[in-house]
């Protein structure tokens, strides 16, 4: 047994060291930068000046930050809720029909496998006011949006969320489906004998049993949404104005367009903290380990 411990330590050590040096130390360096005044173009790294929480105060006083935070929040709530709702519906439907994964589940998952950048471009194309198919359909339905969906302050973010929902709902659906397939049969039989109807079974048995799977799905989606960048970059570039800027995008702009990496690092630390907090919150709320 002693020898086993040595074996496992020996084989896993290179991986652990590598992951620490490529992830943990860089994060520490970013945190370190966030307490300094540092412009990548103007200041050499040896000349950076410690300003304590200065960068964070700058951020929290800036309306840009709160605008981006609000947009991130809207994106998170609308995206996750809609994707979960539709995803659950699709999963239940597929489960009823086929009881298992098949060609339908493979096909439906294709959008989630595509590069987000390609999806962003495709949706930008389809939302194009002159020859986009969505704008054509909307105008056929009698809905006219000034400057088209992505060019309008109040709908630009919704357009991006729409593309996100299209891309990730199938993924949620298939994850939930895999959970459904693995559920035990006994509780359902018992409920049916006791005379429960479909809706009661869904809310009282299926959903509670699916909790761990739902947690995984929500976690993955939330982390993905907070770091969403590609689609916004090509669909609106945060515009019009800053109407569709999320935190991640503002951070990119400050770091790599303004090269103001002190403030930028503080932004990044805030984003990372949000991801961690959200994950912990979801774990605490949903992941009740009953085994």
């Amino acid at each position, binding site marked *: 047994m002693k*020898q086993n411990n040595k074996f496992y330590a020996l084989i896993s050590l290179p991986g652990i060291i590598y992951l620490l040096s490529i992830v943990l130390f860089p994060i520490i360096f970013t945190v370190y*930068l966030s307490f300094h005044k540092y412009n990548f173009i103007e200041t050499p790294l040896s000349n950076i000046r410690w300003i304590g929480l200065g960068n964070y105060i700058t951020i929290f006083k800036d309306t840009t930050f709160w605008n981006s935070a609000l947009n991130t929040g809207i994106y998170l709530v609308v995206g996750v809720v809609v994707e979960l709702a539709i995803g659950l519906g*699709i999963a239940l439907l597929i489960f009823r029909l086929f009881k298992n994964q098949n060609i339908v589940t493979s096909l439906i998952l*294709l959008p989630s496998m595509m*590069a987000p950048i390609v999806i962003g471009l495709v949706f930008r194309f*389809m939302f194009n006011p002159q020859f986009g198919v969505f704008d054509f359909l909307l105008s056929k339905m009698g809905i006219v949006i000034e400057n088209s969906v992505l060019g309008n302050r109040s709908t630009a973010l919704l357009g991006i969320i729409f593309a996100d929902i299209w891309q990730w709902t199938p993924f949620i659906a298939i994850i939930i489906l895999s959970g459904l397939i693995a559920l035990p049969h006994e509780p359902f039989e018992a409920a049916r004998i006791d005379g429960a109807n479909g809706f009661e079974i869904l809310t009282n048995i299926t959903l509670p049993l699916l909790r761990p799977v739902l947690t995984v799905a929500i976690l993955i989606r939330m982390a993905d949404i907070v770091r969403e960048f590609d689609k916004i970059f090509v669909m609106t570039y945060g515009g019009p104005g800053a109407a569709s800027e999320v935190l991640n995008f503002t951070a990119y702009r400050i770091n790599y367009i303004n090269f103001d990496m002190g403030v930028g690092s503080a932004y990044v630390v805030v984003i990372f903290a949000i991801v*961690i907090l959200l*994950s912990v919150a979801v774990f605490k709320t949903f992941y009740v380990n009953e085994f």
Partner: protein
Amino acid sequence: MDYRRRKAIQKFLQVSVIAIVLLVFLFPIIWTFITSIKDNVTAWSMPPKIFFSPSISNYVEIFKERGLHHNIKNSIIVALGATAISLVLGTPLAYMFARTRYRFNNFLFIFVFASYILPPIVLSIPLYVAAARVGLLNTYLVVILAHSSFCMAFTVWMLRGFFEEIPVEIEECAMVDGCSNLMTLFKVTLPIATPGLVATVIFCIILSWNDFMYALVLTGMDTRTLPVAVGQFLTPHGMFWGQMCAAGVIATAPVLVFSLFFQRYLIRGMTAGAVKG
């Protein structure tokens, strides 16, 4: 009889709903493909033309004029490099997670998960600053390192699930027969886990292939990967929609083909632990 008919109608309705759902989710992909084989005049006509003579001019242009094959080559180099690192270093780590119950395992696994969900921008800043300092910006190495962070986390996460499905008893048998720990891993466990390994490799490559942000920040003219090149079809002077769609199809086609075959492993690996199969 009446019951049977009602059942049949119900089934028909459900199948048609699924068909509509499928159509909705596949429509943009189909639309991109159709646009990519239209010439510029047909692509711009609204309402869209259903019947047209297909042309491959867009595909010819993106290779001849824009040299997309260089970007494809870059993407392949980066993806293979990141996947190789992840597999070599991640597999033993995943094996350790699956076979041991050390006290620090939980903490370590949370760290691995955090590496997976880590927003690219967090890691991009230190990498950018460090790479600029030692002159590694615009090289393959820095992008490979960046991609290996999430690829490796993904590898550990996926493979742990696959290793856990392999009964320990098989390994114990091999050891009773005189295999060392290392021999057992290579001669028994890894061969059994081959489907999982293959699926992990495929999805690592896809993750790296699809990444835009690291590549945007860390690559230059010579090392630009495919997604960055695709993003550059967006110019202030106008859009080359036909070419853009063609490049999109090129970037998407291999992903779609591979994922069609390996998806079931992806879901199985990712939800392992959350799903009691």
